[in-house]
């Protein structure tokens, strides 16, 4: 009988990291499937639902094919041929590819979808191999570049938010029905920014299974809601502002799939809260002040840079620091809300 040294066989009290990847994978696939299926029943698309169905299915298909192809290329480069036949090899790439495509709008050409998936996977692999983390979230960064390079193809208009911007500017417009807003039955920025209910369930599931950190996502949602309600109060439409900011413009999609990506977000609880608050503040500020009604994408990139700064200056994690972080965040959010409210009615 031999004796060998071994790490203690502890039963750990957290989900294994591979299980977390599987949970995210199943949710991404379900959301992708439902975005194709559900939208065709909405009145907005009733005249041309076949085209919509086909195009969305093709976009999702392109995402899958491109991501799997890229993964195969990397596996061959690494000469790890055993991994080719294991489904687990492709999970991360498929997740990335699908999330990238879910960010794109209905009318995005297929070649743009393919290019974006290929580029984002290359960027992702490069960052992870060099730094074991992202400096900028690759999906968000590539999408941002797409909007600059192909503005004619990648349209980031979001009707409810556009209407809200007009309201802020004093132009009277009719608002999307709240129920349709929640169901995602309006012309939207991207195919993934869909049904609030689906994303809500995805959020709950991924939080319970420890895939996403509730401290980041929930803080972000609460801050966006608070600021939206606050700015809306100045226009005597707090509920409308709150609903529109939460249910449209990629807010929930970002909360579920983009913001709490662990490779680009901070790792201590205080910095997670500060990061989420910062992204929410930038989101609402951009949406209120500019015509760039989306805001979330740029805000996430700012947040990623802030993460890097945090990692250099925050050295401890304890109750006192947490309390101070929450306090400063509340004060900052309130000041920004009041400031934006006053500016928007001025």
């Amino acid at each position, binding site marked *: *009988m*031999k*004796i*060998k*040294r*071994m*790490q*203690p*066989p*502890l*039963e*750990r*009290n*957290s*989900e*294994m*990291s*591979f*299980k*977390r990847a599987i949970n995210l994978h199943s949710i991404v696939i379900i959301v992708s499937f439902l975005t194709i299926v559900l939208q065709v029943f909405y009145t907005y698309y009733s005249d041309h639902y076949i085209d919509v169905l086909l195009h969305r299915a093709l976009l999702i298909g392109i995402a899958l094919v491109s991501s799997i192809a890229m993964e195969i290329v990397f596996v061959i480069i690494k000469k790890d041929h055993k991994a080719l036949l294991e489904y687990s090899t492709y999970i991360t790439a498929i997740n990335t590819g699908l999330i990238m495509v879910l960010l794109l709008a209905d009318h995005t050409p297929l070649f743009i979808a393919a290019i974006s998936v290929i580029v984002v996977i290359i960027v992702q692999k490069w960052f*992870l191999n060099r730094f*074991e*983390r992202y400096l900028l979230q690759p999906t968000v960064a590539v999408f941002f570049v797409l909007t600059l390079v192909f503005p004619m193809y990648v349209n980031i208009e979001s009707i409810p938010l556009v209407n809200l911007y007009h309201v802020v500017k004093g132009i009277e417009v009719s608002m999307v029905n709240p129920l349709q807003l929640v169901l995602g039955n309006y012309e939207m920025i991207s195919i993934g920014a869909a049904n609030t209910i689906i994303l809500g369930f995805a959020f709950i599931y991924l939080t319970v299974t*420890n895939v996403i*950190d509730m401290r980041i996502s929930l803080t972000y949602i609460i801050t966006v809601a608070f600021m939206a309600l606050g700015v809306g109060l100045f226009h005597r439409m707090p509920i409308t502002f709150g609903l529109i900011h939460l249910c449209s413009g990629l807010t929930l999609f970002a909360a579920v799939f983009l913001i709490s990506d*662990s*490779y680009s*977000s*901070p*790792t*201590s*609880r205080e910095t*997670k809260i500060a990061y989420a608050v910062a992204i929410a503040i930038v989101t609402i500020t951009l949406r209120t002040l500019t015509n760039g009604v989306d805001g979330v994408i740029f805000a996430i990139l700012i947040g990623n840079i802030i993460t890097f700064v945090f*990692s*250099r200056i*925050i*050295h*401890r*994690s*304890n109750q006192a620091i947490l309390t101070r972080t929450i306090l400063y965040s509340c004060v900052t959010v309130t000041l920004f809300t009041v400031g934006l409210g006053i500016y928007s009615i001025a």
Partner: protein
Amino acid sequence: MITNDKMIDQPAYVYLPLTTKKYSTATTIVNKNDSVRIGDIIAYQSNDEDKYPVISTVSGIIIGFEHRFDRFDQSIKHVIIKNDFKSVLKDYKPYPNDVTKSQIITRLRAFHIETISYDGYYTPLALDEKKDHIIVNTIFVNEPFVTVKNHRITEYAKMIIDGIDLLATVWNITSKTILISQNMIDILSPFISACEKKSVMVQYIDLRKMNGWQYQTVRNITSQQSMERVVWTDTEALIYVNQAVRKGLPPTMRRVILTGDGITTNAMCTVRIGTPLSQVIEQIGGYLNIDTISIHIGSYMTGQSVMNDDFIIDLTTHVVHISKYYEYDTEPCIRCGDCNDICPVGILPHSIMEAKKQHDFPMVLKLDVDECIACGLCTYVCPSQINVSQHVTLAKTLGYKRGNHNED
């Protein structure tokens, strides 16, 4: 929870290590064929500062000396005593009634009891240091498994409480606390009442989660960050203290928990100090029929792997885990931050690990790596099965070697 209790037969031969990791020099005062009694001094082990006796745990004849591997896998000299099974005791004066501080100290030193720390989990009973608090743990720890020795606590209640009083006399301490699992309040109610009568505060612990409760509890009781002025010990040490002072009995037996899926029986064993582990395993049923095993001594969080099963059970061995050998795949770090959340001292193990990987040793020092208490919780919670604690420990060493140099 281990409920199987076994008394291991006295071995025919007892092997007593002459040196330890801390006391690396030995001076023997016996020779081959000398007769010894329980409590006789066989040798003195020492370092630059202190000298302690090695005392016999059986009566019999010295048959020689040999080198054996200890549990640190170091080859050290052991004295071999052939047991005559007569248990002849050397007379040490008992102090059944009033006893002075110096008498207690002398007796504890004579029996080497002050060095009990159980693989670094508890603090030694450092008799010449200043101490302000005594905190006693009744919860036998084999993290993440937890065992509470209820019947033993009830049976030895008076000795345990007296042991606390004796130690309080040594340091003139009034702050005495005992930690009890909140699930055991009913079972231990007579003991709890006895503690309260003797002004020993009782603190109840919720054991449902692994969250560094020991450190938090000690910090809450003492309002101190470090354990410097705290006597953190357990009921076994108190029983030794009581028996040593009140009855003049040196520690000869050790309660050891043996667990794991590599052996047929998991049990709490009462073992004669000086018995090889292999003999204990044989007596409780032996190994299962497997090719490769792994032996881990001490708490899962803070203990260590051992490469031999023939080391000697001594005063500081309290837990041994023998399991089938498994290959574990470590996955890449997913930066979840669970290790940062669980750290009881408030440092950031993930950030330290990252800084170490980037060879940023000044940053490692800025992250207060020296405050790490090696509790192992960061490793325990890691979903990628990374031994984070090992990275932090290495970062500590490299940080001090290279971090200061870089700053210069």
